[in-house]
């Protein structure tokens, strides 16, 4: 990607000084609701309901203490983490060779196969929720982490193939040919030469798998009961209970944002290209 400056070319004489205003206002709009959640998470339930203040008057960590000491809360995080990581590993492992095949070869039915994969990314999870429940019941997999991980493959595998194919198409084919002439076998070439070349693409694909598995609720909730119940489901079940503790709910919400924020930070340089699915 070209890293040359564009600002000099795009600057017009008038208005240029106020250009920063648009993204700034947008970011403030994005951060206000998140700030409010963080603000609430440091208040006691009493303070939330009785007084209205922009800052916590008596900051407390009690809400976080509740979550980090109660197994029914913190197990939710552990469960979510387990199936998200499982899903990411499975997805990347199967998507890598497939994306290579799509980026390098034409074969019988390739275009239709690719479109069929994409339709699964576009299919509404609501359509699949019930048959998934039946399917995994038949295999005795309900309430296990692997069930959720496999179910999320439905939309993550197509996406990973799509992203990786975009990144791999950017690697010149001459590299493959040279390696084969040098006597590399396909697996050795793939692991030693090709994967390092597409490392950013693999990172971005893993990021997207993490993201879409982490944020999904419907399938994860349908396929779990207690042992593998994700944190997102724990939260919705609390919402419906009477005598809602807003402070704890806010703290739980803040804790679900942190993993995402950390992951974004690590892929920040590739994030724009990644969202363009490697096609820029």
């Amino acid at each position: 990607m070209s890293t040359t400056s564009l600002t000099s070319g795009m600057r017009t004489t008038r208005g240029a000084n106020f250009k920063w205003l648009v993204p700034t206002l947008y970011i403030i709009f994005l951060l206000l609701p998140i700030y409010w959640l963080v603000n609430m998470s440091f208040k006691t339930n009493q303070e939330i309901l009785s007084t209205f203040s922009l800052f916590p008057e008596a900051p407390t960590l009690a809400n976080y203490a509740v979550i980090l000491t109660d197994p029914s809360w913190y197990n939710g995080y552990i469960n979510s983490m387990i199936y998200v990581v499982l899903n990411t590993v499975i997805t990347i492992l199967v998507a890598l060779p497939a994306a290579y095949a799509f980026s390098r070869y034409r074969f019988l039915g390739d275009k239709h196969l690719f479109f069929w994969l994409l339709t699964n990314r576009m299919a509404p999870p609501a359509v699949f929720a019930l048959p998934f429940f039946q399917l995994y019941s038949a295999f005795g997999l309900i309430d296990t982490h692997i069930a959720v991980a496999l179910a999320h493959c439905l939309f993550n595998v197509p996406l990973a193939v799509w992203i990786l194919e975009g990144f791999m198409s950017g690697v010149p084919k001459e590299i493959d040919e040279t390696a084969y002439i040098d006597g590399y076998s396909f697996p050795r070439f793939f692991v030693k030469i090709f994967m390092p070349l597409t490392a950013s693409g693999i990172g971005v694909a893993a990021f997207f798998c993490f993201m879409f598995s982490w944020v999904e609720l419907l399938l994860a909730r349908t396929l779990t009961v207690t042992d593998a119940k994700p944190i997102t489901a724990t939260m919705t079940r609390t919402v419906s209970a009477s005598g809602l503790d807003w402070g704890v709910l806010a703290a739980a919400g803040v804790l679900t944002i942190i993993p995402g924020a950390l992951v974004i930070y690590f892929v920040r340089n590739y994030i724009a290209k990644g969202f363009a699915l490697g096609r820029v």
Partner: protein
Amino acid sequence: MEKTFNNKAWFLVLPVFFLVAISAIIPLMTVVNYSVQDTFGNNQFFWAGTEWFREVLHSSRFYDALLKNLAFSAIILLIQIPLGISIALTMPKKGIWVPVCLVLMALPLLIPWNVVGTIWQVFGRADIGLLGYTLANLGIDYNYANNAVDAWITIIVMDVWHWTSLVVLLSYAGLVSIPEAYYQAARIDGASRWKVFRYIQLPKMNRVLLIAVLLRFMDSFMVYTEPFVLTGGGPGNSTTFLSIDLVKMAIGQFDLGPAAAMSIIYFLIVLLVSWAFYTVMTNYDADAPEKGVQD
């Protein structure tokens, strides 16, 4: 890139094929089987023919939900695409503010969807939420739990908050790939700001914008979690989208037959629209020979 024809490539695709086939084809077959039968539980099924399809196709409830979905997707696209492009155009292109902008903007995308619902549920409440409190103090009557218009506005603002960044990031990726020489040429020609946008920036963003429209349409058309958490489909049925209705029917009331028939119709519509978008996208790629050789 010239691809070689080799059917052995199928072996590389087989793992993906089997994994997705199990997750997609078996459930799809099951849905089709359910759609033509009636059940009272215990895996006992009775032939019902096309009854459920007729029921769904003649129910105003289905058309209501479908209309709501289409309206929602249209509003979302009309707001998010222009807004996303204008934010991407004004974003800094280099310097320390670039990663700051990117990370902060991507933040809403990484928040679990039900937490997004919770955040706005709290934010809009008149007693404890900043937005609701402020509006109430300004004398504006706003209550997303009782008023259908307020509920719709909240859901749309929530979706703009949640997903506009996707459009911004995609457009931004398209913009930074434009070589500086293009702008210099435009400056020498004395092109106006609008002409630079129309003839240099927009064509370069076309492909990523198509991806943005495709992803935004699909995701807004299957919206479930955020409105479900925020309003539960209410007040009344005013925010009951297809997905919400479907889950209510299939898992809440266990009406497998009608739910399956509705799933199939829903799926066919999605299939038609994604095919149309995909065809436009691939034909655009085919018409743009510079793919993969730029930089």
